[in-house]
């Protein structure tokens, strides 16, 4: 029974998972320019004012909440706009796009609206590679 | 009831008894709930009396402790009082029975001579002669003679009962006329009466299963509340509340099911008492409880459902004959039959103003007695001697000649012995063949269909017609049986009648099932059969052949007039010998359980209000958030505790009448009963203490101001 439940079962799930769903199996990694920059499910700390910040780690149950509320994201827009010169409207659009994408992954009804911070920041880097060049040190992909 | 209650309240022995029962050792064994309350009394009293008690958990003033302790001990006393009260009622019944058992002078027969001895010296097998007006010294059977016996002192039945050879008689009853010789059948001190006294008197009756289960449940609840209150002391202390031991004890006593705990013994004794009052002697408490569960009742038709006395209601002639013919023949056949049935046939004939013309012959006839082999009875007479029968001498009947009288004359002429017989159709068919048999059977069937019993009447080998006999339903039996049915009990009627007759009576009386043409063993078979299906079976019996079934049945009610074997085997005996009383027993059994259930529910439901009374008193001073719980707004914490305890105590005596009388039981669907009781005792149990405690608090606040 130990072998069935404790070894065979998890290994089988792992084997199939790694083959069929490699991305999820390995922690939903976010890739930018071929490099792994994090997991979309785990909060990453940002201190540059050019990025959206996640929640303080102790504010959430998990301490690694990857998401912020739309209100939180919107309130960060003026700061980011100031630091990067990206127009507020453009930032707002990106935020809304992220919200829409997340809504889709939750089949529209199963979760409140939220913003996935790392995805949004990666999107920023992709859209404005030159603005973020100093922080990221790589060329954005146009 | 009330007079009796009043009388027993002022019974000194009972009061003394209720105080003796306060003995903690007695309580610890008998009622754990009350024992805990008493422990609380000692503890709180000690705190109140001992000087300089300034412990961590003692915060109130001395007077409060003494008041609390008094209420606690009064609570216990109310409980012991209720028990003593019901026991004293049992004693009253015993005393009245014991009066019957006085020593009397008996006339013992020694070698045919009467020797006066005192009754207690009589042995089994001794014979005594008892004259009119004398008391029968001990249980026995009639050995010789016939007499009417006055049994009113035992049964309340005012009409003297006729007893003849081999009938049982009871010690303590009185011979009304004539004299009889009685053979003593019981040892001194072991008579039926002695047994009965013993049964009622033994208040130490073993607890029934349900009682044990309920006691366990109550003990379990008490343990839970002890844990709750005990741990509250610590939590309260660590949370910074000013905890007080006596207030905690008050909460414990209030929460514990003291009401049902205190009244439980009284309810049990009251059940036996109430049956005793109805002249039913119960041999074990188990029988009464089983009665509540009874779902199949096997009832004898005769005596229980019907009056047990069949009467002739119609004469049915065969086609060849007239009503007059059959009436005349029936008259003749019944002439020597002095049973109720026989008399009723003659009466019916008289009613119809029909009299046989051959009265002379009848007067001089020889009776043919009923025997179990022949199963018929009647008369026979020899042909008239020719020499005597000249036309002039024989008084010519003024009545017109009928076919029957013609036939008798004809037989006379032919010098043939005349037999006029009546009996069951089958029995008569064996001896009389001159009949259109299909017609006879058809007519017999018709009588059966109407619930009658057909008797055929034959003159020698010719069948003249049928008599329809019918038993009448007992008064009120229909209503009683309707009630039984609503309570979900299946009724089974057992009778020697044929299927058709049985069905008609069953329909008239609203009986569910019948066992027709029953043999003596059928009763036992049916009892076992039903029990195998899981039914709880009740039955009545009086004959010796009923004894095995009575012993096997869950509720066996024997008739007092029945045989000793039947009384021995049954678990209850009805002194009035009224079979329909089994319905009363069933009702009482149900009431007994319901009373326990209702008071338990009431007791538990009360806890809701008690929490709301005491918790604010306990916590409000130190924690203003508890104000939300303070929905009762009692005068002060002290008055809240005291009024809760007072309420808790006085509920016990308030419910004594209910415990003794039992919860009202109405035959109806169990769901309906349940819903009704739940509303009265459950919902009422929640609401009533809110009002009661508040009222007591208002009263107390006048004094405490």
């Amino acid at each position, binding site marked *: 029974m130990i072998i069935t439940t404790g070894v065979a079962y998890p290994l089988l799930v792992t084997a199939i998972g790694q083959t069929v769903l490699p991305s999820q199996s390995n922690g939903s990694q976010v890739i930018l320019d071929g490099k792994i920059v994090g997991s979309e499910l785990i909060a990453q700390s940002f201190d540059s004012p050019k990025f959206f910040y996640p929640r303080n780690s102790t504010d959430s149950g998990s301490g690694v*909440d990857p998401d912020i509320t739309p209100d939180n994201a919107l309130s960060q827009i003026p700061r980011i706009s100031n630091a990067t010169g990206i127009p507020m409207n453009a930032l707002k659009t990106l935020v809304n796009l992220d919200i829409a994408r997340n809504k889709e992954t*939750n089949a529209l009804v199963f979760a409140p609206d939220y913003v996935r911070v790392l995805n949004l920041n990666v999107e920023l880097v992709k859209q404005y590679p030159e603005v973020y060049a100093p922080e990221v040190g790589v060329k954005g992909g146009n | 009831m009330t007079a009796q209650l009043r009388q027993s309240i002022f019974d000194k022995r009972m009061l003394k008894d209720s105080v003796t029962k306060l003995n903690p050792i007695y309580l610890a064994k008998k009622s754990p709930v009350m024992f805990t309350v008493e422990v609380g009394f000692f503890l709180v009293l000690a705190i109140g009396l001992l000087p300089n008690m300034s412990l961590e958990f003692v915060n109130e003033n001395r007077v409060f402790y003494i008041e609390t302790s008094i209420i606690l001990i009064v609570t216990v006393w109310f409980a012991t009082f209720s028990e003593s009260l019901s026991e004293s009622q049992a004693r009253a019944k015993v005393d009245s029975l014991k009066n019957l058992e006085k020593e009397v002078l008996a006339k013992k027969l020694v070698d045919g001579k009467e020797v006066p001895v005192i009754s207690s010296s009589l042995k089994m097998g001794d014979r005594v002669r008892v004259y009119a007006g004398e008391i029968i010294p001990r249980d026995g059977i009639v050995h010789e003679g016939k007499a009417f016996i006055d049994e009113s002192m035992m049964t309340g039945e005012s009409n003297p009962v006729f007893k003849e050879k081999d009938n049982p008689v009871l010690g303590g009853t009185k011979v009304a006329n004539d004299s009889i010789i009685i053979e003593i059948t019981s040892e001194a001190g072991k008579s039926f009466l002695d047994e009965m006294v013993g049964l009622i008197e033994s208040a130490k009756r073993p607890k029934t299963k349900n009682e044990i289960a309920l006691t366990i449940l109550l003990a379990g609840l008490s343990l839970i509340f002890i844990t709750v209150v005990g741990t509250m002391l610590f939590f309260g202390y660590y949370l910074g509340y000013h905890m007080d031991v006596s207030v905690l004890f008050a909460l414990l006593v209030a929460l514990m099911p003291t009401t049902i705990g205190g009244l439980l013994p009284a309810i049990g004794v009251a059940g036996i008492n109430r049956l005793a009052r109805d002249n039913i002697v119960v041999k074990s408490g188990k029988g009464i409880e089983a009665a509540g569960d009874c779902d199949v009742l096997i009832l004898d038709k005769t005596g229980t459902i019907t009056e047990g006395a069949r009467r002739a209601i119609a004469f049915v002639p065969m086609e060849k004959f007239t009503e007059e013919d059959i009436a005349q023949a029936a008259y003749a056949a019944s002439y020597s039959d002095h049973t109720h049935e026989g008399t009723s046939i003659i009466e019916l004939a008289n009613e119809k103003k029909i009299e046989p013309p051959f009265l002379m012959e009848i007067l001089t006839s020889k009776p043919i007695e009923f025997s179990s082999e022949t199963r018929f009875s009647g008369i026979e007479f020899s042909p008239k001697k020719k020499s005597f029968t000249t036309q002039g001498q024989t008084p010519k009947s003024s009545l017109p000649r009928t076919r029957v009288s013609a036939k008798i004359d004809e037989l006379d002429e032919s010098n043939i012995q005349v037999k006029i017989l009546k009996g069951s159709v089958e029995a008569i068919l064996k001896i009389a063949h001159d009949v259109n048999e299909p017609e006879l059977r058809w007519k017999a069937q018709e009588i059966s269909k109407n619930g009658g019993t057909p008797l055929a009447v034959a003159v020698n080998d010719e069948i003249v017609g049928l008599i329809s006999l019918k038993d009448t339903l007992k008064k009120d039996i229909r209503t009683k049986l309707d009630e039984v049915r609503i309570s979900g009990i299946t009724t089974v009627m057992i009778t020697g009648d044929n299927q058709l007759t049985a069905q008609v009576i069953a329909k008239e009386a609203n009986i569910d099932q019948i066992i027709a043409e029953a043999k003596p063993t059928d009763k036992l078979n049916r009892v076992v059969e039903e029990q195998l299906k899981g039914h709880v079976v009740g039955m009545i019996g009086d004959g010796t052949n009923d004894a095995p079934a009575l012993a096997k049945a869950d509720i066996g009610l024997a008739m007092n007039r029945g045989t000793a074997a039947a009384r021995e085997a049954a678990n209850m005996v009805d002194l009035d010998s009224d079979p329909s009383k089994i319905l009363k027993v069933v009702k009482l059994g149900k009431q007994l359980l319901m009373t326990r259930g209702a008071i338990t529910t009431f007791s538990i439901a009360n806890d809701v209000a008690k929490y709301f009374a005491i918790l604010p008193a306990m916590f409000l001073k130190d924690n203003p958030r508890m104000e939300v719980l303070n929905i009762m707004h009692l005068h002060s914490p002290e008055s809240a505790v005291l009024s809760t305890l007072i309420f808790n105590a006085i509920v016990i005596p308030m419910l004594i009448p209910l415990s003794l009388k039992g919860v009202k039981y109405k035959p109806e669907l169990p769901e309906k009963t*349940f819903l009704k009781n739940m509303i009265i005792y459950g919902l009422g149990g929640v609401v009533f203490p809110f009002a009661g405690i508040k009222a007591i608090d208002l009263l107390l606040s006048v004094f405490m101001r």
Partner: protein
Amino acid sequence: MEIIILLVVLGGALGLSVIFGRYLARMIVYEKRPLENTLGRVENGFYRIIGVDKYEQMTWKQYFLAIVITNVIAAGFLMAVLLYQNDLPLSPKPGLSFDLAFNTAASFVTNTNLQHYAGDQQLSIFSQMVGLIFLMFVAPATGIASAFAFIRGFIRKEFGLGNFYVDFTRIILTLLLPIAFFSAFFLLFLGAPQTLDSTITVGTLQGTSQTITIGPVASLESIKELGSNGGGFFGANSAHPFENPSGISNVFECILMLVIPLSFPIAYGHLLGKGRGLSILAAMLIGFGVMLALGFSEQNGPSGLETRFGSFGSALFQESSIATNTGSANAALAGMSPNAVIGLFLGMFVQAIPGADGAGMMMMIIFVILTLFLVGLMVGKTPEFMSMKINPRDVKIAAFVFLIHPALILIPSVMAYTTESAQSILGEQTTPATFTQVLYEYSSAAANNGSDYLGTSANTPFWNWSTAWIMILGRYAPFGLMLAIAGSFTLRDRKEVVEPIKTSGFLFVGVLSVMVFVLTVLTFFPFLAMGPFSM
């Protein structure tokens, strides 16, 4: 939107339990299952290995003994793994202290999953996978098997309660494993990782490095919820995005937790009358409804919310988790409102709305027996259950089962204070909030729930030992007693007659619910007033 979530969770759980209820019923009476021949062959292999005669029927004592033996072996295995994980493969970590290992083993074998260790940080992948996942099958299988035996007690006549080893094998292989397997894939699809690596290190956008803990999460998560276990791969439990990645996974996990507990009344209905099963289901749902109402009364949500669940998703998950005694959490307990916390306590006090896999059903029947006792008296009939007389011994055992629970919660809580063990981790000053935490800890242990406020701060010898023993007593004492009741019922005569009061229908559901509520509230009212109510 909230209504839709609620409907999907309840509808999904109930819909699936109709299917699984039918299946459970077949398993209880050893009827043919789909693929019986294949499954039978596989199982026979297992019986041969452990040397079991599958036809042997056990008395309640033998059945209970088999439970104890199996569970002791499983717990001993887990303890050994935890103590010596430093010597075992797959990212070894230092072995646990003896008291923590004992606590953890007791916790997982009793289906409690109280975690005094720091989740992923303290356990190796081997310990999580081979140790914990194994126990996560053993514990619910034991609970389900016990409930099987218990229900058989009311169906069978003088034919034993079944064979524990057979039940245990069949439950793991043909019930838990297949569902867990497919659920793991669904969770994997939604984002729960599944790998044997313990960490991945990435260079962040800002050029620093981030280490992310990872592991075979999906395979643990599915059986964790399905088996009413509740012990998370991560310390943060189902709040962690890897355990519960999205709103959909949140809803799915709620359904997983509810499905087996709700299948039991359906199975019971198949075997003992549809109305009776539905009535018990209704009583469970009414209790659960009260908990949800208390949970939802909190509008703004606790501070420890995960953004992707929101207040509603969190409250729904927390109440579902406590109601099924799973004990997993998707938000911090500390932030919850008094009402919601009272709702959680209610679930742990009753243990049967709907309660853990198997255990909840048994507890509900205990309530049914107590209810019928009083109902019977109220209508003047000797109380009976399933047309069998309830005798004093049953009432004694049922009352004892009922009494054990408050005793196991309250007495150790007092001990925690008198030994200063509570004060040493919660501060000298006792407040309603800290009292609530202590009360919660033991309620959770006694109810084999596993959620807690204290977490790793309770990793002290006192808390480890005391909660371990409470978990053991809270699990096996009632199990033994309940099996004893079932054992005595199999020996009892059954009637073919109408019940005096129907054990189905609105009236019965109403009375049963009121009885459950009143008995529970009367027992715990003062403590709720002193604790969460005064927070």
